[in-house]
């Protein structure tokens, strides 16, 4: 469990990857990718978040219960986004009378 800690080498590597990804996010902001700008930025952010959770927060070595709790948070985020988008994406499917 929490006694299990990765080596300094691993932590340094993860830290460097995080720094590089931060640089990539900044760099991509200067390139006009249209709608994909947001997608790329969010993807990089998601990868960084996973790295922090798995290594720095020891989620890799946590008990199943802790991992379940963390997964629950993602499930709930998914619920919020999925249902909200389900509204946004289907709003225009029914015509408005008189319009």
């Amino acid at each position, binding site marked *: 469990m929490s006694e299990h800690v990765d080596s300094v080498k691993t932590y340094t590597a993860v830290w460097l990857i995080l720094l590089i990804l931060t640089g990539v996010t900044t760099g991509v902001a200067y390139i006009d990718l249209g709608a994909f700008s947001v997608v790329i930025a969010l993807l990089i952010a998601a990868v960084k978040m996973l790295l922090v959770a798995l290594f720095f927060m020891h989620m890799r070595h946590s008990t199943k*219960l802790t991992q379940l709790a963390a997964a*629950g*948070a993602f499930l*709930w985020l998914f*619920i*919020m986004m999925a*249902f*909200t988008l*389900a*509204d*946004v*994406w*289907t*709003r225009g*499917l*029914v015509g408005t009378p008189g319009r």
Partner: protein
Amino acid sequence: MNTAAIETQENYLNAGYGLKSWLLTKDHKRIAILYLITITIFFFIGGIFASLIRIELLTPQGNLVSSETYNKLFTMHGIAMIFFFLIPSIPATLGNFFLPMMIGARDLAFPRINLLSWYLLVIGGAFAIFAMLAGGVDTGWTFYTPYSTTYSNSWVIATALGIFVSGFSSILTGLNFIVTVHRMRAPGMTWFRLPLFVWANYATAVIQVLGTPVVAVTLVLVFCERVFHIGIFDPNLGGDPVLFQHMFWFYSHPAVYIMVLPAMGVISEIISVFSRKPIFGYHVVAFSSMAIAVIGFLVWGHHLFVSTQSVYAGLVFSFLSYFVAIPSAVKVFNWTATLYKGSISFATPMLYAFGFIGLFTIGGLTGLFVASLGFDVHVTDTYFVVAHFHYIMVGGTIMAFLGGLHYWWPKITGRMYPENWAKLSAAIIFVGFNLTFFPQFILGYMGMPRRYHNYPDEFQVLHVLSTAGASILAIGYLFPMVYFMWSLRYGAVAGANPWGATGLEWTMQSPPPVHNFDEIPVVTHEVYDYSTVVKEGVEVG
């Protein structure tokens, strides 16, 4: 045991004196008392606003306060009652006090965080009170955009900040409960030996931890748009005002279950004790709490039926809203089945439990009315909705809170409350409540909109009935205030187990010692096993 004995035995109340011993305490029982005092203050603040609203509505003309002031009155009534009374009410007081005892623990898992959570509520409450005194806020307790972000000239940010801070109080309480239930159960206290009050608070804690951060984020976004004009909700800046409603209700609908699930837990305890039977279908009732916690997160869109939400999303949310009625109905049927062939006694807590079952059923069934798309269009933003949610929150949660407070008062203070006065006030509250809110169903169905302080003459009779009921209700709430205070000094000494209840909290002296258990108990009996309990009378102690 006599009065002298109760004062000489060491307990959590006489273990230390002075303000510091309370304000720096890490004892879950003392923190529960701190919460109780705090939320009682907010209950009376919210009550004053409610009184002013009802007095204004006596006459069809808006002649007591201006329209602007009226907007502030109902807003601040809602904010005080929901965020600073109902949400912390049962979990932070009765839950804080009894959850560790019920599972055989000496305290919650994180005593310091428990104290921190109370301070956060006080700090958040201080912001809210500051906003009220400085001029108030007029957005409605829901802070709908674009009014809250663009147009309102009232103290939106101070109030939102108060709710933001107090939200963390709620999150920390929930976190504490989850860890405590997982890690600190006594030997033999298996998951299916947990009292249903613990199950209910556990389910509530899950909602608090998963839902509350979202409302905090939402209020931060309101702040960002209001102050820095970042486009989140304003279409002119590329935002979507309905997004606010999605995010707000993602928390605030489950928040209804934060208010009512612990209430259901209290009712399960009371029904079992005063019919001297285990709860019928214990496992199903336990799982129904978890089901409500999960399904409660899938229904928020029923608040958006007329907010330009897609018809398809509306259909799904309407269907899922019906779904949440199933576990709620399971509870009501199982409480009723528990009564069957029970040895029922009509002590005050049981009167409140009966009141809860009836009023919650009316509130729940009218919830099905408003969950149906067509009917909801007719009654949206009318008094029908106001009546519906007051049946849940006042008729449900406050009845259960008072029932629980009477039930556990002997354990908390070591004293009995005066039974006859308590029964009288329970009856007054039941009558006053129904007279206040039943006419509002009819008003709403007839088309009286909420949040207006003037109305057509033909609505006056029903409004007068409602105000009369509110006056009776107010008297009913003042009674317990007075006799609880009285009982602290003059009440009969209660003894360890005046109700002959099962449950570990009744195995220790009243009031409980500082560390609850000298030795951590080993649980060998099933939950609500009345064959093992010998009733200890008032004298036996």
